[in-house]
């Protein structure tokens, strides 16, 4: 097994996903199949090979630090499921 039930539960917690027991069961099998397939990459010796992030080798992009027109507060808050006109409202963090 590449991945256990317990690991799936751990990763789900990291990803902020709540899984039902039968989902954990099914996903453990599916993830194991996929990770076993991915182990195919171990056939290749990549010791001296650099990683690719941007395929044309682009680096950082700089621009002048200028003020541009941006969303106003009303627009920025418009899609908030709970907002009070000034901020997004969320459940209490500190009890």
């Amino acid at each position: 097994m590449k991945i256990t039930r317990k690991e799936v539960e751990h990763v789900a917690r990291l990803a902020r996903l709540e899984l039902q027991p039968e989902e954990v069961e099914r996903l453990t099998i599916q993830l194991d199949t996929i990770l076993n397939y991915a182990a195919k990459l171990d056939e290749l010796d990549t010791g001296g090979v650099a990683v690719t992030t941007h395929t044309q080798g682009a680096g950082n992009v700089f621009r002048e630090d200028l003020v541009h027109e941006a969303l106003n507060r009303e627009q920025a808050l418009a899609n908030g499921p709970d907002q009070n006109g000034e901020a997004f409202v969320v459940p209490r963090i500190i009890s």
Partner: protein
Amino acid sequence: MEFFSLTLAQAKKQLELGNITSVQLTESILSRIAAVEPRVKAFITLDRDGALAQAEAADRQRRAGVAGELCGLPLAVKDVLCTSTMRTTCGSKILENFVPPYDATVIKKLKDAGAIIVGKLAMDEFAMGSTCENCAYNVPENPWKPGYVAGGSSGGSAVAMAADESLASLGSDTGGSIRQPASLCGVVGMKPTYGRVSRYGLVAFASSLDQVGPLTKDVRDCALMMNVISGHDQRDATSVDTPVPDYTAALQDGLKGVRIGVPPEYFSQGLDPEVEQVVRTGIEMLREAGAEIKEVSLPHTEYCVAVYYLIAPAEASSNLARYDGVRYGYRAGDADSLVEMYSKTRSRGFGDEVKRRVLIGTYALSAGYYDAYYKKASRVRTLIRDDFKTVFDQCDLVVSPVTPTPAWMIGEKADDPLALYLSDILTISANLAGIPGLSVPAGFSGSGLPIGMQMQAAHFNEEVLLRAAWNLELRAGIKDRKPELG
């Protein structure tokens, strides 16, 4: 001939000649949508009133002599592109009521050119899928055969072309999501070079792989759309500042001096004999057009799927962290703490495939596994990119099938994620290498399902793809064949 069956270029010509108005054209498209939508289910959101209002405005502009390149032409776009006047769901329940505060750069470019955005097209949730079965709203059906998949993830965009529900459309392609549905539905689809088209306002799936591109009824329309959407954008730091040519100038009859590579790795086991037959016949047509055909090798092809299904989920798990119920989208209302609110929101808002990929990605990036999975995959990605570099010293483009089989029945592969991932094997490499790829109709299976040919070229060489595709289209003789939709 009904207006809705015109190509983009033909409709543009008729508008310019004054033979039709944008209102007539838009009404024709809207009535076509009403007639065929129950059968093909391509749209998530339709904006009839908005479209007609835009058409009236376009007609006024044209009378005033200020018509843009696409003035008055009704289009539709994949629901992954932000539109300030229409909700943008990404095929997900979590964004059911999300109306973006801005337009994606490509949407702005279309609007600035005068195009009318009629509606938003169905897709797999967050573009994760190859069939559109992961769409939380409706599952589009292949116009050529009821009950068959349209492909994905830009399935709605391909269906809208094949069913004449729009004159042209946009999709996005992370591992084949434009080319695969284009092939399965018998239309033209282009994934441009990474960086050719701005990703600003394209809802992110895997940022190092995603690219916006056109799906159209023919090759000329693809070139027209590329002229409008290409170019550098300050708002997308990965877009590249390279001059945009007039892509329609690439549509020359004849392929003298063009070297075409055929990689045996793309014709290996699992390839449907009918698909192979159609593609090999297409290659002969390209030879007759004057191209030189030679065998080339892409030795790391067999590793593409494994690399992709580590890199794409890893990037997705990071990109999709933003759906937490705070700033937009669905929020679970019954949570006592912030963390519980996040978890409940995401568990109810995301579908199965999205959860699966977020989990794979989180695992591949988690402590102790990063080097073994994500980093390893990123190194093999370099080998795949280098394969293409070598090949493009020997030829100008590489041709192959797009998919190992024609369309299959809805539900047929829905329970086996890995089997479905493996069907992406022929399209993934273009995204990993960042090169442009195109699917052009090449023929049909015995049961009447379309089969496309894939063409891939070096970075920023979209022109040679359009030229080769144009020559195949001229010779394949299937351009006027349309599905029976009553």
